[in-house]
């Protein structure tokens, strides 16, 4: 079922998955971490100046929160980068265990996807034949009623003409 849903059998979808994994793993998180670590002492410096004097405390109030926000933003960016890369590698680890359909080994994708289309095809065939039969019955019945109506109309017309001639 899962195989048919994500289209593992389809080579195009699989190549798209690998392209996405490659794109995610291309990110350079080390550079982002280096930049972050170079910003960290600046924040420490500003936090220290707050303890020294009144003039410098003003500086901390102006600059401190801005730097803190910047650091928070870059830290959250690094977290999301690291998490996405970890996830990509976990996906790759699991993709390694996907086997060919005729490989003979256990494959959670191929087992389900082989049964499902067969059932679907059978159901579709049955449904199609049922619709055709039903339509055929309807057409026969309507033809019969049409012809019966015609015959009755002719009988009424003949009887009517005879009655009129007798009365005349």
């Amino acid at each position, binding site marked *: 079922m899962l195989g048919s849903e994500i289209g593992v059998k389809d080579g195009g979808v699989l190549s798209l998955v690998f392209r996405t994994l490659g794109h995610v793993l291309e990110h350079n998180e080390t550079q982002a971490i280096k930049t972050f670590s170079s910003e960290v002492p600046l924040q420490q410096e500003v936090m220290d100046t707050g303890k020294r004097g009144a003039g410098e405390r003003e500086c901390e109030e102006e600059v401190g929160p801005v730097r803190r926000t910047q650091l928070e933003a870059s830290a959250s960016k690094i977290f999301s980068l*690291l998490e996405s890369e970890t996830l990509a590698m976990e996906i790759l*680890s699991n993709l390694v265990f996907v086997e060919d359909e005729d490989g003979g080994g256990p494959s959670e994708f191929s087992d389900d996807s082989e049964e499902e289309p067969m059932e679907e095809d059978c159901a579709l065939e049955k449904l199609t034949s049922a619709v055709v039969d039903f339509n055929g019955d309807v057409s026969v019945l309507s033809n019969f009623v049409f012809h019966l109506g015609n015959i009755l109309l002719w009988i009424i017309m003949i009887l009517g003409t005879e009655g009129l001639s007798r009365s005349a």
Partner: protein
Amino acid sequence: MALKVSQGVRDEGLIAKVLSKCKGLPLNVSEILENNSEYGKEILQKVGHMRSVGLLCLQNLLQTFDLQTMGGTEQIIEIYKTLSKTLPAITSMSAEKRKEGPNQLIIAFLSY
């Protein structure tokens, strides 16, 4: 492994990319992160987790790809050496955290 999967791994150069993720941070960067920042330790922990996942991914890939695709014997020896260094560090880190947990709770309770 399915042929399409191995082809995809080769085409996208995923082995080299995963290998690059398994390299550790420079020593001075990790020292700064450990000492000076509130986010630093969390970043270090996440980098450690990513490295361990990457190394285990390479371990899985090792079973199916040949030596040349994996970057030669030296690269494989390096993978196993890094695995042996990284995994105990991570497991001990989590064990320390588990030890710290109750103590911190007691301290927080007493201070309250």
